[in-house]
């Protein structure tokens, strides 16, 4: 996989995610879709296993570094790791499923994005809940779970939109997996 192209695409998607999440947010409960999640699911569908897991870790870690968690006593802090671990586990769902799905269909991305998102959110909340045993992590884990899960479902929408530019950029990403060569010949 081309690391340079992935870095540029991640930069664009992460920036857009930060910029437009306020607009896409539904209600006051914090339900907003993720644009990074469909990208990682897309990478998981086509990239070699290790490259996909590495990409998910990097994306998750960047989300962690962009997230200031409000602490109960006032102030805010950055906690690196929860989203990185969540994304790394989420992409394993995609890696396990990609042999069973139609790789040429946008429906695949739309269906797998919420599934991976649920794993991402549950893992993140579990890590933060464990941290909460000995440290102040701001929100109670339970209160984060429901908006997180709804946001994962909501991410199916951006997944459909992102499918087309990602598919267009696919040759640039140079996924050198055997199964990609197989579907590539059919395109």
């Amino acid at each position, binding site marked *: 996989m081309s690391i340079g192209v992935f870095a540029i695409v991640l930069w664009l998607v*992460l920036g857009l995610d930060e910029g437009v999440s*306020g607009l896409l947010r539904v209600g006051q409960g*914090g339900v907003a879709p993720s644009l990074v999640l469909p990208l990682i699911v897309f990478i998981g569908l086509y990239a070699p296993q290790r490259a996909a897991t590495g990409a998910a*870790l990097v994306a998750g870690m960047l989300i962690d570094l962009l997230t200031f968690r*409000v602490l109960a006593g*006032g*102030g805010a*802090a950055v906690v690196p*790791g929860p989203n990185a671990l969540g994304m790394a586990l989420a992409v394993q769902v995609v890696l396990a499923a990609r042999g069973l799905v139609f790789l040429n269909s946008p429906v695949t991305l739309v269906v797998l994005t919420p599934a991976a998102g649920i794993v991402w959110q549950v893992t993140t909340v579990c890590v933060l809940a464990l941290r909460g045993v000995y440290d102040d992590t701001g929100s109670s884990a339970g209160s984060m779970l429901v908006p997180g899960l709804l946001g994962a479902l909501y991410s199916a929408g951006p997944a459909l939109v992102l499918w087309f530019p990602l598919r267009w950029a696919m040759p640039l990403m140079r996924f050198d997996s055997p199964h990609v060569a197989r579907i590539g010949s059919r395109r």
Partner: protein
Amino acid sequence: MATRGLITSGRLLAAAVVVSLVCAFLPMRMLGWVTPVSGVVIRLVAPVSSLGKWLSDQASRAEREAHPDAELGRFEELESLVRGQQMEIAELRATLDALEQGDVLPEARVRQLAGRVFATAASRAERTLLVRRGSADGVTLGSVAVVRGRHVLGVVSAVEPAFCVVTPTVSRDAGTLEATVFASDADTEGVRFSLTPVGDGTLRGPGQFRTVGVDQRPVEVSLGATAVLSDPAMPSHWGLFVGRVVAVDADPASPLRQVITVRPEVDTRRVARAVIRVPESGNAGAGDASGAGP
């Protein structure tokens, strides 16, 4: 991926997982080094996030730092100033003894810095806003961000040289703040309430029990009244609008007290620009600087 002696892609990946795992469980006191790293990442992402935020501001009716109706904004500003002065008078009366002994109270002054909101939190659960004003501009922890003239947006909860993190008052973890609701225009003292964010965009909390007149008539606030900031931790920002009372209930634990629900008039999800109110040095009370992070 290539294999170079001991360093293989598999081992690199395993190391990355271990590092993520260790970082995820490091105690907060050992994570001080992360904030500057985070600042670098935010600066790298800022060009795209600013563009995305600008596009979303164009697509929605974004809240701006000034009131869209200049006349109404001027009226609100005067109302806010009057309420703030009323609370300050009450505070000055309480400290009259100190003044008689020669102590001079500092004049309440704040510096106002307008800044563009360029990003919202990437994590779905958090609802912080990043404003392009930082410690290089003089922003300090505990400064208050306002929009539409004098409507409170939130409190600065972290500061980096180029930007600051604002936690909206309605954010679930923003903490309790004290606000005063005036029962009528003639009421100069008001009723103080401790408001805690509920998580649905409102703040809710009980108030004090206050009576007036010889018949000890309780002062009761009504629906639609305005709640203004009167938090002892933020004396420089007294009188700013917190929101409007949308529900009034009796406190189950103490039926004579009222419990109110306040909804801010500004939509904290769609803020394009905000003004950061920084207490001038020497004026910041102990409370004004108490919003310190970890």
